[in-house]
C-alpha cells in the first residue's frame, strides 16, 4: 500500500539559484524499506525535511495516500541526524509524552503508551533523567522512541544509527523491520557500508535520484 509520494520535487534555498533537488520522485509503501544514500551535502536531509513538511518545495507535490480515515497517529515521523536538535523536554518520560500530548491523547492512554515505549526502548532507567545528561547513543534512542510513540504513518530515519553501539544498531534495525510491515519507511545514510535494506535503494547525486540495483 502506498502511503506517501513525492512527485517531481525541486528545491533551492532562498536567495540561491542552486537547485539542491531536481525533479525528485519517490514512493513509500508499507512492507518495504526505501534506502536513500548520497554523499555529504547531496541534499538527503533537505529531502527528508521536505518529506516531513518542514520545508516547502520550490516545485512539485507531496501526496499522502491510502491512510485510513480512522488512523490516529501522525502522518510523518522524522528522526533527525543529530538528536540534540530534536530533544527539548526536561526528562525522558516527558520527551516521549510530548508528541502524544500534542495529539490530544487521553491521559490514561498516553500514560500506557509512554510506559510501553519506555519498555520497548529500555528507557525506564532514564525516565526521570534529562536527555541532556544522556550519552549520545541514548539521546538517539530517546529521539527514535519519541517519534515512534506517535505512530507515524511513514517514518523518515536520517542517519539514526550514527551514534548507536552495535547492540542498539541491531535492535533498531529489528524494530524498523517490524514497523515496516505496517508503515512506510525511508532510511537515510551517507555511507554505502550502512546500506542494509535491499527493498529499494535510491542514490541522490547532483540533485537527481538514481535508482540502484538491489
Amino acid at each position: 500500500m502506498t502511503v506517501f509520494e513525492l512527485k517531481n520535487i525541486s528545491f533551492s534555498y532562498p536567495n540561491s539559484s542552486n537547485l539542491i533537488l531536481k525533479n525528485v520522485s519517490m514512493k513509500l509503501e508499507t512492507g518495504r524499506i526505501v534506502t536513500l544514500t548520497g554523499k555529504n551535502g547531496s541534499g538527503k536531509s533537505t529531502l527528508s525535511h521536505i518529506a516531513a513538511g518542514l520545508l516547502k518545495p520550490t516545485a512539485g507535490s507531496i501526496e499522502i495516500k491510502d491512510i485510513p480515515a480512522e488512523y490516529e497517529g501522525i502522518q510523518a515521523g522524522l528522526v533527525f541526524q543529530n538528536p540534540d536538535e530534536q530533544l527539548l523536554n526536561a526528562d525522558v518520560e516527558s520527551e516521549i509524552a510530548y508528541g502524544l500530548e500534542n495529539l490530544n491523547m487521553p491521559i490514561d492512554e498516553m500514560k500506557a503508551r509512554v510506559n510501553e515505549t519506555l519498555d520497548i526502548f529500555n528507557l525506564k532507567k532514564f525516565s526521570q533523567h534529562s536527555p541532556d545528561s544522556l550519552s549520545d547513543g541514548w539521546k538517539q534512542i530517546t529521539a527514535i522512541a519519541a517519534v515512534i510513540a506517535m505512530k507515524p504513518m511513514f517514518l523518515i530515519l536520517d542517519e539514526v544509527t550514527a551514534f548507536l553501539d552495535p547492540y542498539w544498531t541491531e535492535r533498531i534495525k529489528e524494530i524498523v523491520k517490524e514497523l515496516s510491515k505496517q508503515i512506510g519507511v525511508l532510511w537515510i545514510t551517507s555511507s554505502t557500508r550502512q546500506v542494509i535494506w535491499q527493498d529499494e535503494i535510491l542514490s541522490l547525486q547532483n540533485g537527481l535520484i538514481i535508482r540502484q540495483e538491489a
Partner: protein
Amino acid sequence: MEKSECLDFDKIGYRYPGGNRNVLSEITCSLNRSEITALVGLSASGKSTFGRIIKGLIEPDRGCCNSVNSDGERNKLPAEKRMKMIGWTGAHPELQLFAATVQEEVGFGPVNLGVKGRDLDQRINWALEKVGLDPEEFLNRDPFRLSGGEKRRIALAGIIAMQTDYYIFDEPTAGLDDDGLESFIDLIKSLKNDGCGILWITHNISQLAGIVDRLWSFEDGELVMNMAENQVDWEDLTERLVSGNDKCSRTSILACH
C-alpha cells in the same frame, strides 16, 4: 614544555555530580605517540567522559594524568596543560562551530596561538586539505550552511590546525560518507606518521581492524580490554558488543503501533 612521549592515566575515577554510579572506575592506561588507539564500548560505558577528562574538560574525582618523557620520567599534567597539548572534537561538531566563514573557523585556533599572515593561510589550507576539502571551494563559505558531514570535517580541520601532540576524536565518523571516512582514516594515519598520539572513540568497530595500533574497550566504566590490534579477536569483540548488556523488552513494537 618537555617533550611528551606518552600520556599516562593512573586510576582515573569519576562520578557525575548528583549521579548514583561511578561513570569511570580506576582507569589505568597509556596513550602513546605515533600510535592510533581506539576506544570502544556500549553507549554510556564512559568513553566520551574519559575523552573529556583526558582533554581537561572535566576534572576526575580520583587519579591523575601524567606526561612521560623520553627518559621515562612521569610528570603530573594538570588540566590547563592538557588543554594545550591535546586537540579534541566531540560528537557534534556544529556545537563547536561559531565563525562566519570556514577560513575564520579553521584559523581561530592558530590565530590564538599567534600564527598570522602567510603562515596562517598555509596552516588553514593545510588543515582543509588534510580533511579532504578544497580550500578554494570552502574558505569563504558559511560553516552553518554546510551539510552535517561537511561541518564535521570543518570541525576536524579547526582542531588539527592547532598542530598539537595528541588528538582525541569522539565519534568523528558518525554521519560521514565513504569519502569522508577514507579521508578521516588518511588524516589520522598522517597525524600518526607526524608523531602524534591519536585516540579514536567510536562504537563502530567494523572500521578499526588493520587501521588502529591499540584497542581499549570499556564496560560500565571499567577498562576491560587493552591490547595491540594484532591480538584482538574482532569477531569475538563484535559478538560481545552486539549482545550488549541491556535487558531489553522484546515486546512487539507492532503492539504499540
